[in-house]
Structures are given as C-alpha cells and as structure tokens.
C-alpha cells in the first residue's frame, strides 16, 4: 500500500484540480439546480421510479396487484363503475373506486379514488386540519364542459373472459377493453390499439396507512424505503406530510407511436425526448410543478412556470392524446422502445412510446382522446377545458414592456417617440415599480403622480396600459388592502391554520386565496375604477408571480402543507394555483363599471389547463441569447398544440443586453408569436425600437409593421382558435400529419390557415435559411414571389438581416391591411388588401373574421365572417357567419370598409393584356369594372396581377370575374 502512495497523491491532486475546474465552469451555468428538486429528491418520484425499475427487472414474474372486482362492475348510461382491489397482503386488500365515463365528445375518462380516504376513515398526523379525501375539486377550475355522457356507448357482449369491452365514440368506432386482472385498459380505434393503461404494471396508488414506528434498524417487510413517507426535507424546508405517502402513478403506452408532444411548459424541443438517459436523451423525467425558475436552462425537462398535462402521440395518419387531470407535483418519464431493425430508425420503424405519469397526491383522473387527427385532439380537449378567449383586438398587436418605465412622464415620452419614428404599438406596460412601495393597487406618488393623464394620452391614439398585479399582498398594517385581506380572512394559511407569511417583492407578504369564493368577490371589488384609483378603461392587468413565487419558500414557492380554502393542502392544488388568481382577475375585468362589459385582457406567468379561456401567457424570464431565441419557437408551438395558443416569449430576451443583430432577429421572430411583447430586465440598456441605430431601426419597424399588416389574418386565426381550439401558429406535423420527415421539425411554423410559412432566423450571421416543404404545392416568397417547389426537401431561402423568410403556400387567400397606423385601433376603418395565392389548380381559399374587437357583441351577431373563394377565374366572398340581433347594426357601421386591392400571385398567362375585371356586388344596381394590371413572371419569380379598387364592401357578398 505504501508503495502506491506517491502516485495516489498525484492523482488526488489532479482530481482536486479537475473538481476545482468543474466548480469554476459551474459558475457559468445560470440555473440554480440546488434550488429545485431532481426526481431522486422528490420522495414520490423516487419511489415510483424505483417501483417501475423493480417491475421491469422482474419481467413476467411480476404481476400488478390491482384487480377489478368482477362483481362490482356496473355499466349504465355511458358510465362504468366498479372497484379495483389493491392487494397488500393475503389478508389486506384496499378498495379503490373506479369510474370510466364515455363522453359524447368521444373522449373517455378514467377516475380512480381511494375508499378509505374518501370516506374519511383515516387519521392525519400532527393534528392536521387538512382534508382527508384525495383532491376532487380540480374540475371546477379546469373543466367547462363537455362532460355529457354518451348515450350510444354500449357494453359489448363479445368480451373475452376477464375483460369488459365498451364501444363508444363516433359511430361506436372506439373501444375500451378493460382487463380485470391485473387491471388495465386498452383503447382501440377501428380495431387497433392506440393507448394502453397499466400495460407495464406501473400503476401505483399509495393507499393510506398509519405510521408504524419500526424499531431501530428494521426495514419494512417488503423492503420499502419509507424514508420519504412521513416527512421530507429539501433546502432547509420540512414538509410535514400529514397524510403520509399518497402518490398516484400509472404507465400509459402508445403502441406504434414514435413521437409524443405536449406537457408544457419546458424549454425543450417540441417532440419530447426519452428521459431514462442515453445519448440525446434526458436523465430526469419531465417535471410539472409550477415554479419561478431563475435563469432557466434550455433543452431541459426541468419544470417551468406553467403546466398542461396534455400529451399527444402522433404517427402517420393518427394522433391520440391523454390528459392527466391532477394539480399536484407531477413527473413524466418517457421511454421509446424501437423495432429490432436498426436501419428502420424512427421513420417506418415500429416504435412504442411509453410514458409513466407520477403525481404526489390526488386522484387518478385521466382523459383519453382517440383522434384521429391533430385537430380532433385540440378540438375535443378544447371542448373539455375551453377554447382560447377571443381577445380584444389590441392584445394581438405589439406590446412594449420594460422593467420599468419609471415615471408617468417616461411612459408619455416613450409613447411620443413611437409616433415620432412612426412605429406602431398598442400597449405599454408597467412592471412592479409603478406601485407605492410594492403595494398593488396603489401608485407611487412621486413617480406616477398623474396616472390618469398618462392613460388619457395613450387613449388619444387608442393605446392601452397594462399594469402588474401580483397575488402577494404586502403585509403592512396601514395598507388598507392588507388589512382587508387579513380581517376578512381571505389569505392562504400555513399548516397550523394561521395566515401564511412569506417573502416576495414587497418583503413580508400574504397571499390572497382565490380558492375562497369570498376572496374572489373581494378581489373583483378591488379593480373597480373607484377602488383602484388612477385606472381608466384602457388599463389591463398582468398577473405575475402566481406559481406562487415565494422567495423564501421551498423551491421558491409555498410549503406544500399550507392550507387553502376548504382545507385543501397546497400540495393538492399547486399547479392550478396560478389560474385561480387569473380567473378572479378575469371576473374583475369583465365589468369594472356597471354596464361597461369588455373582454378582459390578462397576461399570466403561471398556468394550467384552462388558462386559455382567460389569459395570454409568456415564457417567463428568458435571456438575450440566440439559444433562447431559438427555443422560443418550439415552446410557443408546444403551447399552441396544448390548447393554449395565446403565447409568446419576451422579445429581445429579458436578462442581459441583446446585440443589434439579435434584437432585430428577435423582432422578426416575435411577430410570429401570438402574444408579441418586448420586455427587458431593469439592469439592461433601454432598447425601444426607435433607440436602435439604423439600419436596424427601419428593419425592426418593418417587422412590426408586417405584423400589423397581417393583423386581419391573425385576428381570424384567433377567432378560429376560439371556436375550435386550432393552434394559431402550427408546427409541421399539425399541418402535414402524414409527412413523417416533418414530425420533429419545430423551428418553422405556419400561421393558422393562411398558408404563410416562416422560419425565423435564430442564429448569428446567417444570410440564408433552409425551409422544409412537406408538400408539392408551389410556395412563393412573400415579398418578391420567388417560387419554391418540391416535397420532402429543404429549400434555401435568402434571409439577410433585413429579411424575414416567409413563404406563401399556393391555395390561400390572405387578408391584409396595408396602411401603417399608430395603433391597431386606428386601422379599424382601413380598407383591405386580399392576396390571392393560386395553387396548382389555379384555385385559392381563405377566411376573414372581423368584429368590434372590444365587446362581447359578437356573441349576438355583431361580426363579419367571410369565406373568399377563387375558382374558375372568379373571386367570391360568401357569408359564413350566422345572424344575430346585432348583426345588422354592426354591418351598417362597417359599410364603408371596403377591399382596396387584390393581388393575385401566379395568375394564368392568358390574363396578359387583360386590363379590367367585372365586379358584381349584391345590392348594387349594376356590375362595375375595376382596373387590373398584369405582370409576367421573371427570373424564377412568379407573375402577379393587381386589381385596383374593386371597392367591394368587406361585409358584403360579391364576386369578381376575371
């Protein structure tokens, strides 16, 4: 041994050096990992992963201890009920009530609860006041319909022994085959299995048990690791866990599927990666535990601010999905098992994707959607959790934000500068510094002495103000709102039932508990103009820090044993906490003055399924780096396919200063975010677009104006999302679900149904970009009409700094408004341009939706909804709306709004020499003519024709013959 000493010392030295170096490098990595749990540090995740490993290791010798009791099965009116028995030992079986509902919408819902907890036949430790049952009230926050049970669903008589089979869905093409022992369900469509529950045997519902203090040194009978059953400590915070272990977990397999998408929010690719290690894979499961993650890292399964536990699996010709309705901390492992043929790799090869869902508490409550198209998933899911709200029109225009505009004069100055440089914007934002000492609903008297004057100036050009209101209320006796919160007993409590006090921006703070109906009522009252002094009707709200972010709490949030209204533990409701606040704010903004009902606008950082009905979201505190710009595209796309399309990332990057190139590229990308807002950290340089030196200023202005030009198309897309849940910006797989080579592409996007395809430049110094085309349709450069054609290939498109690479797919009609204005509100009366991009057959189609952009009158018919069709040399405008009591009056106000220009891309050559078209408008005495100019094609650029002033009313039925 002695002989080996010297080299060993040297090794040690070297090792220490390496470690030291590692520490130094470690400094550069921003996110503070030690602040957030890994699966191994989260008791239930660790237990369930270990359980899964154990099950897998045992292979066929293992049998899942869950069994559906045959005698308990009862099927009636589209609903199956029964009891699953979990075998603990020969003597002990735990009863778990099961409900499987088959819904009229085609979705199926599987709920598993625990009888003892449900009946309250358990004892809580530490004399806890917490509720005994598993959380069963999440529906209230998330589900808005359609839970109607299917009348057609029937019990199939053909089921084999040990199985129960139910036919349901459209024309009963769906089947749920329930295996009794071990319990499991297979969902089939057209005779093929698409979703399997508990196929791997990972189903695990930790039943209630009293704590048995085992004598020192003896382990549990089964060798269970009980170390995290009764208490967990992380980062100096101890969770008292009064109900002991109570997690729920299950494996869900998608046989034959190679891609799964969804479960936002993660800074990761659209197509989710495997999580059990290996090259290109993650080591950790995807986590959903809404958190204020400081300087988050990219390409990571780490949790972020919001979560939507909707996962969809996609393969050629089929999309299916599952929605795990549980608001507790949730982890999802993903493993893909490939075919044995290594050459088949993905495409063509048969791959199963297996997911393993683990939640800390609550019920198993799972919805299964069988597609078969991506649209079917977003539609059915939307029917369940609600569609995107149709926002006020200004909300889809450009937002200018900064932490902080420091005085009311500062705001007015920025406002004037936008006009001076003729850059359109609609909304200016105030971060926390506008308040008096971080007391929400107040204004700093020194810096914002005249908020009304400021808002009036903004209103002169129909601009809006958004101010931040967070859920933490400064704990200060002389602050009226704090007094009210406490005296009315509307705050969240700690585990002992006392008002919880934590640290946030204002220092010591309390949190409004929006689970309490009284708290919601009170919250609503705070926004009335006479209560929140200094606000006018053009003021809207930003709800931040609603994860909730608690600076001194475990993982920067509340202790899990905190208690909310109804004595639900914070652990049970954590992920839904954010939207309870937004929900209350939404109700508050609906009618701030009697009779003045307006569509609310709220931006939220934290979210859960359902948030789309009431708010927009952004991806939180990103950084001014090219990598963050790049990741914003898949993040926004992923939110879109997960039912929450009103999404965006901070243009320019929140932390640090972007270079001029980066900022410019970010604007060029940002105009494709449904929610388009520039934002910056307080320590960064001012970067309002007019401050950037030429030529960047003009280039950025062009981008913003491009967004404004296309607002008619954007608003139409928002409308579509609001009625059928279709994403506003769409990934490749969604538009071309049969093109396998495009499934994993997440750096280019389509704008709704417009055929506009863009691939924002997200790297430095690039002058071209390769756009992938899935189909054989002709695509045209948006600006110069260069033609690109060829399916399944990447096409090189010029993308110098001054150019946004955009292609127009043949076959679409794109509505535009070409006149630049100060704000979108001032474009209301402007005429339309229709860009008619002909397809190979010489046809095109498009839609337009218009309303007042402000009120709910559209619900009573005050809107214009047209379908434009170009075929057989005729362009027609057809009404696809339905009339309501307010239709006529609205159409009258819009009577003077007309079509000023038609641009036909790639017209037939026969048009050469043609100089006029015939316009036939319904209600006109006679047909009229409009001048047309034809331009032939040249140098790979398509020809085009321009019709001048057809002068047809936008709300009218008409046709134009070429």
């Amino acid at each position, binding site marked *: 041994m002695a002989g080996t000493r010297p080299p060993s010392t040297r090794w040690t030295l070297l090792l220490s050096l390496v470690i030291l170096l590692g520490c130094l490098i470690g400094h550069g990595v921003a996110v503070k990992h030690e602040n957030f749990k890994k699966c191994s540090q989260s008791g239930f995740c660790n237990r369930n992963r270990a359980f899964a490993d154990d099950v897998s290791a045992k292979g066929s010798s293992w049998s899942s201890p869950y069994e559906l009791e045959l005698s308990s099965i009862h099927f009636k009116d589209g609903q199956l009920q029964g009891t699953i028995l979990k075998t603990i030992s020969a003597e002990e079986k735990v009863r778990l009530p099961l409900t499987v509902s088959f819904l009229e919408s085609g979705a199926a819902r599987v709920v598993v609860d625990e009888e003892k907890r449900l009946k309250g036949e358990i004892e809580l430790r530490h004399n806890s006041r917490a509720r005994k049952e598993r959380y069963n009230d999440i529906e209230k926050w998330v589900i808005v319909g359609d839970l109607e049970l299917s009348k057609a669903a029937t019990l199939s008589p053909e089921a084999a022994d040990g199985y129960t089979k139910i036919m349901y869905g459209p024309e009963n093409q769906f089947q749920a085959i329930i295996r009794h022992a071990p319990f499991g369900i297979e969902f089939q469509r057209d005779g093929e299995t698409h979703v399997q529950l508990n196929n791997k045997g990972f189903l695990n519902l930790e039943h209630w048990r009293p704590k048995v203090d085992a004598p020192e040194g003896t382990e549990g009978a089964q060798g269970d690791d009980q170390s995290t059953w009764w208490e967990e400590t992380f980062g100096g915070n101890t969770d008292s866990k009064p109900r002991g272990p109570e997690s729920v977990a299950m494996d869900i397999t998608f046989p034959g599927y190679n891609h799964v998408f969804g479960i936002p929010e993660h800074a990761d690719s659209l197509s989710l990666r495997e999580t059990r290690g290996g090259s290109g894979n993650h080591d950790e499961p995807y986590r959903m535990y809404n958190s204020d993650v400081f300087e988050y890292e990219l390409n990571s399964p780490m949790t972020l601010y919001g979560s939507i536990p909707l996962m969809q699996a996609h393969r050629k010709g089929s999309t299916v999905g599952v929605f795990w309705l549980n608001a507790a901390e949730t982890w999802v492992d993903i493993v893909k098992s490939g075919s044995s043929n290594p050459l088949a790799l993905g495409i063509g090869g048969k791959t199963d994707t297996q997911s393993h869902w683990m939640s800390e508490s609550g019920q198993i409550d799972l919805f299964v959607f069988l597609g078969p198209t991506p649209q079917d998933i977003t539609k059915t899911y939307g029917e369940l959790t609600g569609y995107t709200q149709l926002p006020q029109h200004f909300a889809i225009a450009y937002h200018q934000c900064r932490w902080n505009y420091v005085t009311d004069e500062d705001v007015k100055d920025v406002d004037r500068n936008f006009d001076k440089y003729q850059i359109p914007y609609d909304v200016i934002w105030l971060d926390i510094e506008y308040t008096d000492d971080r007391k929400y609903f107040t204004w700093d008297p020194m810096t914002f002495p005249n908020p009304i004057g400021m808002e009036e100036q903004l209103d002169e050009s129909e601009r809006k103000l958004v101010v931040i209101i967070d859920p933490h209320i400064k704990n200060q006796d002389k602050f009226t709102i704090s007094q009210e919160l406490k005296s009315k007993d509307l705050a969240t409590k700690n585990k002992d039932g006392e008002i919880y006090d934590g640290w946030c921006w204002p220092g010591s703070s309390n949190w409004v508990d929006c689970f309490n109906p009284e708290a919601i009522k009170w919250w609503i009252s705070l926004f009335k103009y006479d209560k929140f002094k200094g606000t006018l009707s053009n003021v809207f709200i930003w709800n931040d820090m609603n994860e909730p972010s608690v600076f001194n709490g475990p993982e920067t949030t509340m202790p899990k044993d905190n208690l909310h209204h109804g004595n639900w533990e914070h652990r049970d409701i954590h992920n839904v906490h954010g939207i309870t606040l937004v929900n209350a704010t939404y109700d508050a903004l609906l009618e701030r003055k009697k009779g003045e009902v307006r569509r609310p606008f709220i931006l939220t950082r934290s979210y859960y399924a359902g948030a789309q009905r009431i708010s927009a979201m952004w991806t939180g505190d990103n950084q001014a780096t090219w990598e963050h710009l790049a990741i914003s595209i898949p993040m926004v796309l992923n939110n879109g396919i997960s039912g929450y399309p009103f999404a965006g990332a901070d243009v320019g990057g929140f932390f640090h200063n972007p270079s001029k190139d980066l900022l410019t590229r970010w604007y060029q990308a940002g105009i494709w975010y449904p929610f388009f807002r520039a934002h910056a950290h307080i320590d960064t340089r001012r970067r309002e677009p007019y401050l950037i030196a030429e030529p960047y200023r003009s280039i950025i202005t062009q981008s913003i104006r491009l967004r404004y030009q296309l607002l008619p198309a954007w608003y139409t897309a928002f409308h579509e999302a609001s009625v059928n849940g279709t994403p506003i910006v769409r990934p490749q797989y969604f538009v071309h679900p049969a093109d396998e080579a495009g499934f994993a592409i997440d750096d280019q996007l389509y704008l709704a149904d417009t055929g506009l395809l863009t691939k924002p430049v997200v790297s430095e110094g690039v002058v071209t970009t390769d756009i992938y085309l899935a189909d054989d349709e002709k695509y045209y450069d948006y600006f110069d009409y260069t033609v690109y054609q060829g399916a399944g290939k990447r096409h090189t498109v010029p993308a110098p700094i001054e150019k946004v690479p955009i292609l127009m797919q043949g076959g679409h009609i794109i509505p535009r408004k070409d006149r630049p204005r100060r704000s979108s509100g001032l474009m209301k009366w402007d005429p339309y341009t229709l860009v008619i991009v002909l397809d190979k057959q010489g046809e095109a189609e498009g839609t337009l939706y218009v309303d007042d952009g402000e009120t709910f009158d559209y619900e009573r018919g005050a809107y214009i909804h047209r379908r434009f069709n170009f075929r057989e040399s005729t362009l027609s405008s057809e009404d696809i709306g339905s009339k309501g009591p307010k239709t006529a009056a609205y159409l009258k106000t819009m009577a*003077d709004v007309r079509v*000023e220009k038609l641009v036909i891309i790639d017209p037939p050559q026969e048009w050469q020499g043609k100089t006029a078209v015939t316009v036939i408008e319904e209600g006109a005495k006679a047909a009229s003519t409009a001048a047309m100019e034809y331009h032939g094609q040249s140098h790979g650029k398509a020809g085009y024709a321009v019709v001048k002033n057809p002068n047809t009313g936008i709300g009218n039925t008409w046709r134009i013959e070429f």
Partner: protein
Amino acid sequence: MIFSRGSFLLAGVAACSTAVAAASDSARPRGVGPESIQIPVSAVNDDYCDCPDGSDEPGTSACAYLSRNSALTAADRPGDSDLEEGEELTTALPGFYCKNKGHRPSYVPFQRINDGICDYDLCCDGSDEWARVGGTKCEDKCKEIGKEWRKKEEQRQKSMTTAMKKKKELLVDAGRQQMEVEDSIKRLEAELQGEEIKAKNLEADLEEIEKQERSKVVKGKKAGKVNVLAQVAKGRVEELRNALEEVRHERDEVRSRVMELEAILSTFKVEYNPNFNDEGVKRAVRGWEDYAVRGTADTLENKARDRDLEEIVKPDSDQTGVNWEQWENEEDSCEPDTIYKLAAYLPPSFVTFVEDKVSSLRRFLEDNGVLPGSDEGSTPESKAVTQAREAVNAAHSTVKELQKQLKDHKEDLETDYGPASVFRALKNVCITKDAGEYTYEHCFLDQTKQIPKKGGASVRMGSFVSISSVTIDVLNEAGEMVPEQRTSLEYTRGQTCWNGPARSTTVILECGEENQILKIAEDEKCVYSMVISSPAVCPGGEEDVPRGKDEL
C-alpha cells in the same frame, strides 16, 4: 375634396410626381423620376396608391406604406415593379398638407389621415379627417388654436429676446473672467520672475555661509545632566516607537482582513442577481452598497500619512527624528539652563523677555563664530546655515507655488469653455429639478448629482470632463426627421452603481431663457441624460462681445 387639382383636370392625364406639384408646394423634393408614369387625373386622390413615389395621393393615406419603415412586396410598388431591390425609396411629399387657415400650415404624416383621430396639434382645421371614418368629425379649430399659438409664439419670441440678452450678459461675464485670468497670468509671471531672482540670491548666500562655517574652530564638548535626560528620553521614545510599530502592524493586518471581506462582498454583489428573490441577500447587498458609498478600506488608506508614520518609526539619526547624540553631548553648564532654573521663580512675561534677549544674544555670538552653536554636537551645521537653507527652501517653494498657479491659469485659458468661452460664466452654477423620488442637481462644468427625497446620501452622477456635442433626431416643420447637433456636457466617473458601471451623465443643452433642467432619463443602467435649457447655447451673439486684451 380639399385639394385643387389645377390644370390637370383639363389635361385628363397626369404624371406621377408632377401630380403633386399642382396639389401643393412645388418646391418639395420630387420623386425618383417617375414622371414618365402617366396616370389618369381621376387617379389623383382617389384613395388608391398609383405612383411609386406616392405623388398621386397627397390627400389620403393610401400611399402611407411607401416608406423604408414598411417591408414592401413586389406588388406594393405601384407602376414601378421593375425598381431594383434595395434602391432607396423616395416619396414625393413629407405628409398631408394642412392649410390651417388662421394658423400656420403644416404637414401631417400620411399615416394619420382618416384614422379617426383629429390631430389638432398638426392640423387645426380638421382636414386630416375629411373622410369622417366611423363618424369622426373634426371641426375647424384654427381660430382658437392659432390664437393660442400666436400668444405662445409671442411669449416664445419674447423669451428668446430675453434669452439673447442673457446670453450677451453671459458672454460679457465670460469675457471679463477670461480677462481676469489673462491679467492674473501676467501678474504671476512678473511675480515669478522676482521670486526666482530672490531664490538665486539666497542660494548664493547659503553657499557663502557654508564656506564660513567650515572655517569655524570652537566646538562644544560632552558634559552634564541634559545628557542623562536625553538618555532617558531616548529610551522612552524608543519604547513608543516600538509600540507604534506594533500597532501599525496590527492595523495592517486588520485592514487586509477588511479588504478581504470587502472583496468577498463585492464579488457577492456582482455575482448575485437581484431577481433571485432572497430579501435577506438583497438587504445584505444594499447594506454593502451603503457601506461602500462611505468608502472602502482601500479608499481609507492614506499614503501620505503612511509615509509619515514610516518616517516616524525609522531609528533616530542625524537625518531623521531626534539626534540623540547631539543631546548626549550637550554642555550642561550653559547659561540658558541657569536662566531656566531661575525662570521658575519669575513672572512669565519677564521670563519671555529674558529668554528672548538671551537667545538673541546667544545667536549673535554664534553667528559671529564666537560661541559654538548650542544645538550642534557632532553635527557640523550651524544655525546660520540652517536658516540660510530654510530661506532658500522657502523661496523655492514660493517659486513652485507661483509656477503652479501660472500653469493652472494657463490651462484654464486653454480649456474649452465653448464658443466665446460662454460656459466660463456658468461654471459652478447649480440648478436642480425634482423628478420622481429624486432631486437632480447639475452644476455646470462641475458635477451632476442625485439627491433622494426620502433621505439618504446623495449620489454623484458624474464629474465634468468636456464640452461635446450629440446628434439627436428632430422633426422639422415638414414632419421630416432630421439630425440636429446639440451642445452637450459630459460628466463621467460618478459613483459606481449596484451591479453596474460608474455613473455618468450627458447633459444635452437647448436654447432657453433660464438655466433649467427639463428632463432626466436613465438611458441605461447608471447612464443618465439630462436635457437642460440655457441661454448659453442660444444661437449667435458671440461676435458682438468685446474680447480680451490680447485681441485689442
């Protein structure tokens, strides 16, 4: 329609770019030569953009998109699709021409025409909303707006006159101050010359005295009680010196520990991010900041004092400290000591008198070489030599002082005080403004400051460096953006920011009657700009002011 279509109505056909000439001011710049593009007269102001320079739509917003601020498609360049990419787009008109009868005519940007907003600030006659979109009706307000404007304009003119008057005063004042400096230079130069001669003479004296001294023979010899006292004192001093040395050592050690701690804290401040959410940490950072504002250990370090201490602790010798040898060799029986003993019994005033007499007598004897210098033991230098040397030194330092003053004045004369040195008159003039939580102070050519209203120490936002200029974009009367040069004052090296650089301020000046801070902005973290009005930058006036003597 509000525009006269002139003779083109007769012709039936118009050409792009000339169409606009009829519609408004013919002096406006023309387009890119699309005169060749013919359009029917009916296409002028028909709310559809036909001309690539927009000249057919002087009265509508139809051509508003023709701008480098819009990304144009091939079909957006009407009648000019062949125009090569990248070619600069030139529009025929800066905007919609508002006649504003009863006020001044002006241009309104095309993007504001018929958008439903009455832009009275530009178009008081309301003609910008002639289409009455959505029922917008803008009545003609030119009468009242014009009246109001004229009133204001009159005030402005008056104010400008006053400003010019003030500027002249400033120029006179500046000229006077400059002359004073020039005078001072002359005076100083003369004085310096005198002093230099004096110093030379004294040097010669010193040399002479030294020569005499070397020939002296009588020397004192060692004896008596003083020597005992000297030895005791020497021991005591030695003891104190050692103690001082020890204390210094301890101080240095503590200081280095403080510096180490400060280094930890300042790294902590830099690496910590304020967005991460720990109030305790933030408080610590704020505490550190406040502490750092009061100065850190390295600023406390006083090199001069340290050098002094260094000197003090050096062992005594004939060069530094007390020359013990001399005292140890002092003659005990010298009469001054007898007189001191006697003095204890005499009234103080008498003692002083006697003392003076005795010492002057003694000096006389010594000076004449009769007695050896009482304070010289083994040291060869006599009092006379010392005095002569002191005189020489004093003369040298006077010379140096004068040279420095002269240099300062000359530098001052060479310093840029702006045209006709106008800012000389404003130097150290301070003005303040309340804005938000702070009162801001600007002292011309000195510094800028931020004084928190809620209390606490004020923060220096920069010290004066130079007079400079900045270019800012302004809208001219035609609504066009034009670059304009403004005089600016640069202040840098202010107090360092939390998580940021040293503060700096650019003061941008504009002509105004009063010296006044108009606006303060933090353009980026700790980089401020102030817009300040001052008569000093009003145009003209420099040539009328009497200049300094040198130019007479």
